[in-house]
């Protein structure tokens, strides 16, 4: 069984591959105050490879949500704060937002007041180390003072923890692709597919997403579902997506494949989607175990899962990470700097020019010229380059995105705000 080195969280009985401390504003109004707290620790690095940091998840959600947007936002904020890669959380609350702690009124029971702080309550129930400051209650200066004190305390505790051996069966890895070009579908995605097959044979859990990018390759997916129940779920999801996508495309006058796609050699939607979906591998014995909604907790029992997310990079990655993915493998052709606030994002390309130009942001280049000159198989190239690098990153080596300090985080909104 393959193993990596990770941090064990005793209370929650999970392994994290990073030991970050997260500063999370519960609403966008306090982004700047949270930023001020973070600025005291922006240079702080610790761990074997200096990979752990104090991170801040800035976002523009947390207030004026309607209906299911309210629930999705809560799910994402709670998901990112209870991520296994996070040692402790500081919630920066305003006082009147939808997920904030209400200021304490005179004669009010302190405990009852905290119970109503839903986000805090949820995190405590999940056994997470969490502190809070409330701006409307303390004032700005006092909030910053208390916030930095809390972060300092957690920092000293976090620095004392060491990595222990962790089997791959306890790790969740997400796969995605974005900023694609023809090399993505031909080389990068199938190569990641081979890595995915190997990881699943080691009982690792894999999640893939981006619903709009599988449309057209429905038959391919239908062969890969576990049972009738999952099939029904998948069909219902794809039906909705096809109808919505076609409706919007018809109204905006755009088509898929786009004129740009057609110019670069793609003839049908199926071809485009088959190229994208080959990142889950060609092994038909690996079945999709379940269809998860956006940001839902991914079961850590090994196998393949599909999460319904938009095709957009930021929201797709955030969805999978909020669901508990420890690491995301992301294939790209043209190159993208995207990362995530708590999870490392490993960017893989098969385009040599892109890699040479963008070495600062791309982690792995699959040397496809070896495919032709030395007659290596793509599987071998994938294992030698992608898999090796992933094992290093799982055990602590920082990704390029972490080195340049990417802390991307976004909340999906489907409906209008009040």
């Amino acid at each position, binding site marked *: 069984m393959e193993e990596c080195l990770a941090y064990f969280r005793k209370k929650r009985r999970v392994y994290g591959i990073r030991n970050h401390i997260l500063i999370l504003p519960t609403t966008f109004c306090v982004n700047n105050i949270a930023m001020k707290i973070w600025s005291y620790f922006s240079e702080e690095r610790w761990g074997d490879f200096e990979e752990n940091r104090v991170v801040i998840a800035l976002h523009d959600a947390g207030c004026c949500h309607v209906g299911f947007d309210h629930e999705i936002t809560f799910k994402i904020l709670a998901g990112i704060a209870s991520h296994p890669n996070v040692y402790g959380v500081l919630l920066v609350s305003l006082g009147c937002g939808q997920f904030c702690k209400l200021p304490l009124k005179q004669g009010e029971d302190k405990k009852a007041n905290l119970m109503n702080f839903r986000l805090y309550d949820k995190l405590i129930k999940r056994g997470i180390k969490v502190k809070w400051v409330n701006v409307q209650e303390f004032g700005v200066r006092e909030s910053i003072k208390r916030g930095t004190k809390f972060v300092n305390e957690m920092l000293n505790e976090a620095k004392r923890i060491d990595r222990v051996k962790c089997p791959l069966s306890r790790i969740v890895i997400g796969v995605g692709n974005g900023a694609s070009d023809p090399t993505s579908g031909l080389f990068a995605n199938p190569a990641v597919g081979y890595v995915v097959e190997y990881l699943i044979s080691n009982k690792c859990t894999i999640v893939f997403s981006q619903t709009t990018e599988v449309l057209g390759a429905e038959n391919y997916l239908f062969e890969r579902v576990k049972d009738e129940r999952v099939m029904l779920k998948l069909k219902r999801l794809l039906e909705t997506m*096809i109808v919505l996508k076609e409706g919007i495309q018809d109204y905006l006058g755009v088509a898929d494949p786009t004129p740009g796609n057609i110019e670069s050699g793609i003839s049908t939607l199926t071809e485009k989607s088959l190229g994208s979906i080959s990142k889950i591998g060609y092994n038909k014995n690996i079945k999709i175990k379940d269809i998860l909604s956006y940001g839902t907790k991914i079961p850590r029992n090994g196998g393949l899962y599909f999460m319904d997310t938009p095709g957009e990079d930021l929201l797709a990655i955030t969805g999978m990470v909020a669901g508990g993915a420890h690491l995301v493998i992301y294939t790209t052709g043209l190159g993208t700097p995207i990362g995530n606030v708590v999870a490392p994002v490993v960017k893989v390309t098969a385009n040599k020019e892109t890699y040479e130009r963008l070495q600062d942001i791309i982690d792995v280049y699959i040397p496809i010229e070896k495919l032709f000159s030395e007659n290596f198989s793509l599987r071998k190239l994938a294992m030698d380059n992608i898999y090796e690098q992933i094992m290093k990153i799982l055990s602590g080596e920082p990704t390029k995105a972490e080195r340049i300090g990417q802390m991307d985080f976004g909340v999906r909104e489907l409906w209008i705000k009040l």
Partner: protein
Amino acid sequence: MMKIIYKLNPIDNVGTALSDLEKNNYYPIFEEGKGVVGSLCVLNDIPKWYKVALSKILEDEFVLKFGYPMGIAVIDIEPGMIVHITNIILNSNFNFNELIEYGFILGRALVNIDKGSSIRIGQNFAPSHPKLRGLPHNTKIGVAASRIVAGEIIRLGNIVDLKHKLGWNIKYRSLVKDFYKFIYMGIMSMSRG
């Protein structure tokens, strides 16, 4: 990148040009993991990343890439010819009507329709799609992409050159349309002050 034709899967009948290929020249076919498996005379100029037929693909046969059907040939394609939107359409093997109530199904053929002949309401076609039902007799709908037997369902997949815009699902589409219109109007009225 080298001047070769890259084949992804042993059963594929199309390969991808890894750089611009010139007409009437021979190029090696490279299969992943196996090496060079043969060579092919290219009949058209093939731009980089475009597809080439590796074997003869008869009309109505599947075009296979990644080991999967990605489209259907609408004419006979000779080995070495370019494979693109000019000679293939989306794979009609999809059981679309299982996915969506209607929208894909346009109607039924009244008589046998030969490939390439036009499909007209009343003449050889009885419409069932709500967007086509109200149209006058003898209106041209499109051209048959394959031979259609009398009584067979005519749907996106065996019809090309469609003259009319179709909603995939009228109910949903009008809903989405109305929503966007509503948002757009709101923004416009706000910006006017």
